[in-house]
């Protein structure tokens, strides 16, 4: 097990290094001159030169890359060009919105999808199953930002139960802040939960056909007992993988949804930075998001190996 973790860890580090090189190249080398991008075409030559020196652009690319990665490792993400504050401070602030939002959406997804998927499998081909399959089929096809708009129209504009957008911060107690996150989290969770419920259903149907479930039935367990005691846990393994894969969609979804609800999170930060041409913020935040996807998938791999020892041999 230890050698498996070490091997996976080595490949995690290698992946992160390659990812940082890709992000750096795409953001700094391909388009040409970041200083020009930030200042626009009307910029005076001396202002441009000053910004270039300030950003260290007069140095060769490999040197800048090493300096950037060194900073990332130390937690120094550079200084925002528009906010004149360290990017790490901005990110820290914004994470107080994005992290709870993502966790809320993820918990909602899992809490809804697993029982619903299990129910559909347990009652396969019944009306319950058919309705669940129908609803999830539509759920997959709904764009989360449009669903968010519908939720706002219904629960914020018409019924006035929940805020249409904005975030009061955690300073006024948890409830006002949570209220602001409910609709965004539901909007994020719907398509994800639809996919996950279908995965759960087909995974449980696969395990219900396994020999050990038949054995359990043969020794006198009812179908429900066999399902709960034997099939359910094994069916969760593929579900776990999909949860890991969904994490990258969750991140992309958060960026879009934060813009629907004007939530001051990471997604809003990166989006404002794009419009203000603040490439230092864009580059560092994109790298952080990519790194979080890579790390989550690493953790899923490890979790997978703990649950299923057969997987440790490959690597």
């Amino acid at each position: 097990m230890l050698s498996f973790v070490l091997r996976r860890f080595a490949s995690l580090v290698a992946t992160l290094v390659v990812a940082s090189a890709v992000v750096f190249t795409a953001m700094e080398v391909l388009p040409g001159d970041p200083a020009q991008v930030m200042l626009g075409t009307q910029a005076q030559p001396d202002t441009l030169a000053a910004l270039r020196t300030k950003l260290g652009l007069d140095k060769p690319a490999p040197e800048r890359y090493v300096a950037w990665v060194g900073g990332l490792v130390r937690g120094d993400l550079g200084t925002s060009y528009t906010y004149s504050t360290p990017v790490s401070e901005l990110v820290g602030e914004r994470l107080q919105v994005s992290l709870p939002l993502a966790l809320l959406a993820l918990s909602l997804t899992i809490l809804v999808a697993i029982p619903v998927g299990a129910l559909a499998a347990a009652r396969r081909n019944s009306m319950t199953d058919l309705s669940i399959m129908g609803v999830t089929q539509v759920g997959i096809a709904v764009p989360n930002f449009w669903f968010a708009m519908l939720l706002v129209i219904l629960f914020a504009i018409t019924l006035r139960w929940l805020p249409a957008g904005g975030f009061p911060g955690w300073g006024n107690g948890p409830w006002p802040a949570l209220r602001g996150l409910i609709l965004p989290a539901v909007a994020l969770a719907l398509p994800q939960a639809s996919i996950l419920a279908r995965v759960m259903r087909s995974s449980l149907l696969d395990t219900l056909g396994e020999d050990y479930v038949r054995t359990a039935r043969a020794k006198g367990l009812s179908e429900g007992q066999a399902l709960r005691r034997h099939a359910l846990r094994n069916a969760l393994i593929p579900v776990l993988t999909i949860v890991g894969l969904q994490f990258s969609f969750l991140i992309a979804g958060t960026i879009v949804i934060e813009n629907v609800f004007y939530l001051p999170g990471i997604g809003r930060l990166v989006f404002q930075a794009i419009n203000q041409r603040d490439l230092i913020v864009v580059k560092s935040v994109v790298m952080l998001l990519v790194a979080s996807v890579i790390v989550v998938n690493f953790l899923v791999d490890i979790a997978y190996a703990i649950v299923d020892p057969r997987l440790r041999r490959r690597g």
Partner: protein
Amino acid sequence: MNDTALIAPSTGFLRRALRHPSFLTGAVIALAIAATAALSLVWTPHDYTAIDIALKMRSPSADHWLGTDPFGRDTFSMIMRGAVTSIAVSFVAVGIGMAIGVPLGLLAAARRGGPIDHAVMRTADFVFAFPALLIAIMLREVFGPGVTNAMIAIGIFNVPVFARVAYGASLPIWQRDFIMAARVAGKGRALITLEHVLPNIASVLIVQATIQLSLGILAEAALSYIGLGVQPPMPSWGRMLNEAQTYMAIAPRLALAPGLTIVATVLGLNLLGDGLRDLLDPRLARER
């Protein structure tokens, strides 16, 4: 699996297809959207770019079937023309994904266990860490916000998907007897891949292409919604939703029409994909 039936669908295929409810529903929706897009190239009820403030925010009427937007543009015409944008972006993105991903997946499968296999599949895993949205953000300064950026970002996202599918579907084919026979006959890996492997995985690729098309339509809508995709005056369902957001309290109708169109299109393609999978590969269909 019946090899010949996959390459040349027989009349049996057609008969089964016409009795398959999700295939039939999906095919009808997909054809309707494609026909609308084609029609919008030559005719729309109104000019979809014509701004006429005097006509702004009209409710649906005989002249403006879905009403007009805050600029007086005809919503129905914009939705019709938006279909062209959606189809163009998602087709090109699938094209990019297949053109690069499929040969890489086939190559990795043909060289199974070797360094090429390893390199290709690790790279595919790696690209998965970049959601299309982040690729679009990174490439924005290269291509500028617009259709090209959306096509390339979604296309890059599609590459590892097709590489993995082509790889996964090819591996069992390489174990088959007819491949052994071809190798004994002295054929090289490249020729075997072209003559035997590719035709046998074609159905799997078609099913995946349908799914990626529907994902591409969702991704294009999201990119255009946040302003990284299609730029005005070219209509896009995602952009229409973005413009509708300001008027949600006054005219929720503006958000309804483009959203429902996206849902119907994506749903249609997903049903078509499910139906195709059932019809082309009965082994996969049994328990789902």
